[in-house]
Every structure is written in C-alpha cells, then in structure tokens.
C-alpha cells in the first residue's frame, strides 16, 4: 500500500478584505475546510470554476499563502507552520509550474540562469556541475542545447512552459503542483506538454497535483479527480469513476457543460442556471444548493459531509447515494 505524500486536514485560507472605517472587515473564505490525501506517484486533478479556490489551495499547500487554520502534512510531518529551518527540505521537495509562461519567467535572465536559479538558491553542486545539470534539464524538456544563452522572449508559449517545467524539476522534487500549466497554450502544443509531463512523471517518479478548469484534459491526465466548489471539495473519485458515476449534482452539471468535439453527440438540453455565489457570503447548509436542481429544505439547513458512496468515491451531497445508483443504472 502506498502511503500518502501529502495530507491536508481541515485546511482553511481566509482573506480579510478592506472595508469602510468602523464596519467589520468582510472575510473571503477562499479555501474553506479541505481534507485531501495525495498518494506517492499519483496524479490528482483538481477542477472547478474560477473563484472556487483551487489556485489558493495550491498556493497554500506550497505556503505562498500562510494557512488560516488546519494542517498540511508532508511525508507525515506538519509543514503548515514554522520557518524554513523547521520545515526542512519541504520547499525543495515541492515545486510549482505556473499558468502564465509569459509572466512567470524573469525577462532579464537568460534561460540558463533561470533554470540554474533553483540550484543556486539551494547551493547545489559546483558551478561546473550546475552547468551540466542545466544542459541535462534542457535536453530532458526537449529544448535545443543552445537555449541556455537565450532569453525567454525568444521562445514560443509552449517552449516557455518547458522552461518553467525545467525550473520546477531542477531540484528533483517529489511533488509538483501544476497550476493550469496548459491553459495558455494552443491545442496542438498542449498535447506536447501533457505528454512530456507524463513522461517526466514516469522517469522521475513525480507526484502531481494538477489544477485546471479543462475537464477533458484533467480526465486524461489524472488518476483521481477532486471537484471543488466554493472553497471545498464536493466530490472525489478515480477519474473513470467520476465520469461514469458522477454523484454530486455540481459534477453532473460541469460534465454536461463540456463542449464535446463531435457534432453527433447528444447535448444536454438545459444548461445549469445561475452563477457561483460570492465566497464572502457562502450559502448556509450545502454550498451548492442555490444552483442545485435537487435542493430541498434539508440542504439549506445541513451541510452535507463528504461520504463514501462505494469504492472510495466521495461525495458531499445528501442525495449522493441515489445519484450514484442512478448513474450506474443508466
């Protein structure tokens, strides 16, 4: 049995917003109680609409944001608090690939310097060893060997994302958090980057937390998928199970909204109404009830916990059991 590499326990990240004098500051609950286990070597996809808190969750895990409450266990050790000295090699072992390959690379540094930067900061190797390592990394992500002397602006979006990936794997991390790594890229280039991420995972034994709003791509790349809504995971299952047996009304709505590249495919008739509520004012009870076609009085009163509907498939809905059954029957 593989053991969890990362464990999140009731993780919260709230932001206090500015307000008029003498009025209470509104609190934006971006991440509002997330429990999640990430196994070694797996790819966990995290999907949701903008504002659901998926990027904040990623940034909190890597401690670009300090968590408001809850714990982050990495390899069994709590890394949610304390200085870098106390959390040890955590920062080295967790790396991130960012969405925008245009904004996340310093335009004044050469590609060689960019890729060597994590090695320099980590104080790893002699200068000669670092140069060799940079050459290896360039080769590994499929960039020409003369790229090191050039600058980021000389590269296309897909190539820049490769530079970002080379930076992320330079320190041989265990966990790589990919925050929308392909959203800014063209379709033909997306497939190149996704295939490369899969190859790197196989070669280096990486664990991925893969954040995206692209539901087709997440199904392709993930072993398990978590669906986020208003700061919380509302459904979590293996990717095939999630698509065959969606057991939360929100997941169902999301799946039926994906445009399928096949004109003959059956279309959902009625699109889901309404929009995601503000995370400053999260609905009582079930947070999805304001858009849910199945909502009852119970949903307004009681916040449904994540429960197992069979085979480790978790759903936070009062009617999860029924929904799971329906999907199996259909």
């Amino acid at each position, binding site marked *: 049995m593989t053991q969890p590499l990362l464990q999140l326990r009731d993780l919260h990240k709230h932001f206090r917003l500015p307000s008029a004098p003498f009025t209470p500051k509104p609190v934006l609950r971006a991440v509002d109680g997330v429990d999640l286990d990430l196994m070694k070597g797996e790819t966990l996809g995290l999907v949701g609409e903008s504002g659901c808190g998926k990027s904040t969750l990623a940034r909190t895990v890597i401690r670009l944001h300090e968590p408001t409450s809850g714990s982050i266990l990495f390899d069994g050790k709590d890394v949610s608090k304390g200085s870098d000295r106390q959390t040890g090699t955590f920062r080295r072992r967790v790396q991130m690939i960012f969405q925008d390959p245009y904004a996340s690379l310093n335009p004044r540094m050469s590609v060689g310097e960019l890729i060597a930067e994590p090695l320099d900061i980590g104080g790893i190797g002699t200068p000669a060893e670092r140069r060799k390592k940079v050459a290896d990394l360039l080769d590994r992500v499929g960039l020409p060997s003369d790229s090191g002397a050039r600058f980021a602006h000389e590269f296309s979006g897909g190539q820049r994302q490769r530079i970002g990936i080379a930076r992320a794997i330079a320190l041989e991390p265990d966990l790589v958090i990919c925050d929308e790594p392909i959203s800014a890229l063209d379709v033909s280039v997306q497939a190149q980057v996704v295939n490369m991420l899969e190859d790197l995972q196989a070669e280096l034994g990486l664990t991925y937390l893969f954040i995206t709003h692209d539901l*087709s791509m997440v199904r392709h790349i993930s072993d398990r998928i978590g669906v986020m809504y208003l700061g919380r995971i509302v459904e979590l299952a293996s990717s095939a199970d999630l698509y065959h047996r969606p057991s939360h009304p929100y997941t169902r709505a999301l799946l039926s*909204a994906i445009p399928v590249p096949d*004109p003959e495919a059956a279309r959902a008739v009625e699109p889901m109404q309404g929009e995601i509520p503000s995370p400053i004012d999260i609905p009582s009870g079930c947070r999805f009830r304001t858009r849910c076609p199945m909502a009852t009085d119970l949903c307004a009163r009681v916040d449904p916990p994540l429960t197992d509907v069979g085979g480790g498939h978790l759903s936070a809905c009062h009617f999860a059991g029924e929904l799971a059954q329906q999907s199996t029957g259909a």
Partner: protein
Amino acid sequence: MTQTVLSVRDLATSFFTRRGEVQAVRGVSFDVRPGEILGLVGESGSGKSITCMSVLRLLKTGGRIKSGSANFEGTDLLSLDENALSDLRGNRIGVIFQDPMTSLNPTLTVGEQVMEAILRHRSISRAQARARAVELFELVRIPSAAARLKSYPHEFSGGMRQRVMIAIALACDPKLLIADEPTTALDVTIQRQILALLKDLQQRLGMAVILITHDLGVIAEVTDRVLVLYGGLVMETAPVRELFAAPGHPYTVGLLGAVPDLRDDTHRRLTPIPGSPPNMLAPPPGCPFAPRCPHAMTRCLAELPPLFGEGHQSRCWLQHPDAPKVDAVHEVAA
C-alpha cells in the same frame, strides 16, 4: 442560388512592424449564408480574428488591408467610406468581443451603453430607447432587467457582462453577428449558458453569425459550417458534420487527435502536432503546414496547394487526383 449575407474574396491583411511585414491573412475567401452559424477555427496567429477585424475595418495600428473585397448587402465594406461604415457597424452588423470587461466603459451604466448603441442608429426618444434596452436585457435573460440598467459593469459577473455585450450587439436587429471568442474567458457552465443563448437568439432573430473560436468542442456544438484557418489561409472548409466525420486536411486531423476524448476510457496517448506554427514574417512558400505534416511531399514544401473540392474543400496536395492515396485520418491516429 442561395443568397449570401457576406461574401469575402481574396482578403489579405498585413501588419507592418519594425521587424518587417507580418502577413496575418494571405488570401481568404468565404461566404456567410443567411441564418447560418459559420465557425472560424484556428490557433493563435492563424488569422481568424484578423480576418473578421479586417472585414469590420477595426485593425490595430500598423495593420493594413492589402487586397480583397467584402460584400455585405451589395456594398463593399473594404472600400466604403468611414462614415457609411460606422452606420453599418453596430447596426446591420453586430460585434461581440472576447473580453467583456475591457469592451465595456467602466464609467457609464450598462443601460447608458445599450441606449447609446440604439440612439446612434435610430431616431427615437430616450424613453423609447430605454424601453428597447429593457426589452434587450430580457431577450438576453438578465434578471430584473429594468433595475439592472442602472448598474455599472463592475457590478456584473463575467457571464452577465457578456450578456450585456450581446444586448448591445443586438440593439439594432443586425443581419450579421460577429462573435470573436465570446466564451473563451468564461467558465464551462457559463459558456454553456451563453452558447445556448446565442444559438436560440440566432434562430429566433434569423440572423447569420460568424463565430470565431479555438475550441473544437464549441465548433461541434453550435456551428453549421466551418472554416479551418492556419498560417493566414483557409486550410479546410466543410459542413460541421462532414468536417468531424471525414476531415480532409492533415492539420484538421492533427487538431482532432490532440484533444483528449472525454468518453474514452483507454487512456490513449495524445498525438501532438510536432513543431510550432509558422513565422508569419516569412511564411513558407509552400503549404504552411508542410513542416509539421506527417505526409509532406516535396511538392508541399515548394508550392502552395489550391483548395480542392466543392462544398467540402481542402487545401492539401493529397487531394490532387494524381496524388498517392494516403489514409490521413487513420495513419495519424495509429
């Protein structure tokens, strides 16, 4: 013979920059028929947006239409004087852009902006224009329409702002609506709402729509006919069902192979298109896709193929009667 709403012929547009001439559109021709949704699909730099911006003559600084014509209701939009063109834009031709935040004026209420669009083209009173604005908001299903006229754009969500944009575009009952990536900035559930709305309005109002997108899913879902653009040229054009059932150009085949199929459990490895799109400062002399094409022949690199076929057309030498028979679809998928 079927009439056309818009008939574009041999359109060529370039941008003149410090580094030289960027040949964004290199001879694009197409017709838009009444009441149809024509999809323009392509990756960034394919020329899909520039084609439409040229037709509307809304090119950014440095952009120049080098040749071609765009016949709309008997007038050539490309040679029309600026005043006459302004009378058409926003009136007979409506436009929706990708980013609803930057296309709305943040200092005016949305009601003012809808009324402005109406009053620019109609000689009616402000009260009548306001009534029409309420009507339009109801048409695009903005709840409590009358009250929301007084809101500012920042008080609206992305989806609602796009509805306002659609209301403005429809203000004067256009014959043609040009929608440039109208749902790209939106979430899937909101995208679904906006696409359903557009399709419904198109059918009810009987207008023609040009929908520009990079998303093949969106193309499959709402369009009737498709132009596939690459390197500033039309590579393939076909009715939507034919395009997906029997793509005739290796580029189209490549695009379809590069997206994962949601219904596929086998975890097929994606088939990326190797390389990157051509540099339009110096486009290749032959087929622009040839350097990335698995079937490229000597002739492809040297000579630009014409569009072969009727109805379903493909710009590929493999379609030439004397060409070797290659099963492009299955070979790439294998």
